[in-house]
C-alpha cells in the first residue's frame, strides 16, 4: 500500500490551458504478432500449421485504394503487430502510398518494428529510419515505451526490446529527422518508483515534445484478470508527467471516455485529445 501512486486533488480553476482535438486515422498493419507481449491486444500468435495459415496483409492494397485516405485528418497512425512474411519494402511502399494520398502527418511504426526489420533483414537501424522518413513518416510511434523498467519488461514482454534499445533507436530517429514520440502505459498498481525509472530514460531524448498516456486495457490480453487502472491512477500519472516534464504536451486517446473524464483530463494537463475518426484494418 505504501508504494501506491497517490493522487493529489486539484481544483478546476487550476486547469491547464489548451485542449487540442486531434482527429486520427488509425491504420492497423496486422493483428497477428510473434512477440507475445502479455499486455498487448495485438499479441494473437498465429501458429504456422495447415489449418491456421497466417493471413497475408492487405495494407498495401488499402493504402492505394481505401476511400478513408481521401478524408482530412490531423494525424495518421500506422501501427500493428509484427508481421510474419511481409518484408520491410512492403511497409515502406504502403507508407509511401499513404503519404502520397493524404497530407496529414504520419506517425508510422515504432521502435519495436524498426528493431524487428533490423534483425530480420540485417539492415542498419539508421537505414530503416531514413527510409521511413523518405516514405513520408513524420514521427516514430511510441510503441515499446510502455514502461521502461527492465525487470518489469522481462516479466511482461521478454522478447520485446530493452529500455536502452528503445532509447537508442529513438536517438537515431531524432538524428535522422523523425520526431520522437513516447508513451507511458498506466497499469493497475503502477508505482511512483516505476514511473521515475521510466522518466529517466525519457530525459535522454532531446526532441521529446509529446508523451502519450495509455491506460492499460485488459480486455483481450493475457492480463485480463488484473483489470483496468483506476481513474485516480491515471490522473496521478498525468500529474507526475506534468511535474517532471512541464514543457512536454500530454496526449491521450479519448475514444469511449465519458464527458466527465474528458473534463478531468483537461484540468489535469492533457492538452492533446486524440479521437479516432476512421480505422483501416
Amino acid at each position, binding site marked *: *500500500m505504501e*508504494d*501506491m501512486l*497517490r*493522487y493529489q*486533488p*486539484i*481544483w*478546476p480553476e487550476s486547469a491547464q490551458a489548451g485542449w487540442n482535438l486531434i482527429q486520427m486515422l488509425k491504420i492497423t498493419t496486422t493483428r497477428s504478432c510473434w512477440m507475445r507481449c*502479455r499486455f498487448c491486444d495485438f499479441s494473437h500468435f498465429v501458429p504456422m500449421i495447415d489449418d491456421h495459415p497466417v493471413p497475408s496483409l492487405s495494407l498495401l492494397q488499402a493504402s492505394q485504394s481505401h476511400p478513408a485516405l481521401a478524408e482530412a485528418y490531423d494525424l495518421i497512425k500506422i501501427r500493428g503487430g509484427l508481421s510474419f512474411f511481409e518484408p520491410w519494402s512492403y511497409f515502406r511502399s504502403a507508407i509511401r502510398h499513404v503519404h502520397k494520398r493524404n497530407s496529414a502527418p504520419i506517425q508510422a511504426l515504432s521502435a519495436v518494428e524498426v528493431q524487428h526489420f533490423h534483425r530480420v533483414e540485417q539492415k542498419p537501424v539508421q537505414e530503416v529510419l531514413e527510409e521511413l522518413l523518405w516514405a513520408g513518416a513524420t514521427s516514430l510511434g511510441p510503441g515499446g515505451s510502455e514502461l521502461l523498467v527492465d525487470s518489469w519488461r522481462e*516479466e*511482461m514482454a521478454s522478447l520485446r526490446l530493452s529500455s536502452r534499445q528503445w532509447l537508442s533507436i529513438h536517438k537515431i530517429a531524432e538524428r535522422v529527422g523523425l520526431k520522437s514520440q513516447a508513451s507511458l502505459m498506466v497499469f*493497475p*498498481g*503502477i*508505482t511512483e518508483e*516505476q514511473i521515475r525509472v521510466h522518466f529517466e530514460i525519457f530525459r535522454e531524448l532531446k526532441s521529446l515534445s509529446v508523451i502519450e498516456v495509455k491506460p492499460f486495457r485488459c480486455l483481450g490480453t*493475457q*492480463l485480463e*484478470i*488484473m483489470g483496468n487502472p*483506476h*481513474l*485516480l*491512477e491515471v490522473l496521478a500519472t498525468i500529474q507526475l508527467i506534468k511535474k517532471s516534464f512541464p514543457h512536454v504536451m500530454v496526449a491521450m486517446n479519448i475514444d469511449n471516455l*465519458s*464527458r*466527465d*473524464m474528458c*473534463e*478531468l483530463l483537461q484540468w489535469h494537463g492533457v492538452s492533446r485529445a486524440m479521437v479516432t475518426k476512421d480505422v483501416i484494418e
Partner: protein
Amino acid sequence: MTNPEILWVPCLKMNSQDPAYGDRLIRMFLLSHYERGHVLFETGTICSTPSYSSLMPPTIPASGSVWRILPESPVELTTLQNFDGFIELFVSPHHIPITVLETLWPGPKIKRVILTRPKHLSLANFVSAIEGIRIQFPGLGLWVDQLTTGWDALTYLLAIFPDLQPWQVQDNELDKLLSIGQQLGRDVLLTDFSGRPPIKIPFLPRYAPGPARKWRRVPIYPRFV
C-alpha cells in the same frame, strides 16, 4: 492525521408492497447488510426499522420521523418549521432552497442534504455548486447521489471534498467504492443513521507488483484463509 472514512449506506425503497411482504423484505435487506441499511417509505405504512425516512406528500410525516423532501416537490418553510421531526433534503444545484437552509441551519432539524446532478450540468459547475453550499453552510452533512452523478465525477468529488459522502451506491457497485477508498487511502464503512457502530469493509485484494507469473493465480485475501 488519518483521512476521514467513506460511508456506504445501503438503501431500500419501499413503495406499494403489501405491508406483510414489506416487513419481510426489510428484514432480509437488513440481514444481508449486517443489520445496517436505510429504508425509504414512499407509502403511508411505516414499519419499525432503525434507520428510515419517509416521503409522503402531501401529508406531513409523524413527529420524530425523518422527512425526505425532493426538489420536484418543495415544501413551504412554515410547514417545515412546524414539523416536529427531522429533514432529509434532496437538492439540485439549479434549485437550492437557500431560504430553507438559512432558516433551519445550523440546527438539529436538517439531518443531511443530498445533492443530485442534473443531466447536462458540467462537472466544473457541479464542483462550484458544492463548494458554494459548503462555504455558505459550513458543517452541513453533504451527500452526493451516485446514480445521477456517475462514477468518474463521484471519484473526483470524493477526492477533492473529503467530507462529502456518496449516496445510493448499489450493492453490485460496492467494489467501485472500495477501489476509490483504496486509492485515496480512506476506509469504507458500512453504516446507516440508526446510531449503531459502523462496520469496516475490507478492501479487495490487489495484485502485488511482483512477478507477473503469480498474477494469474486467484488472489486470496488473508482474512478468508
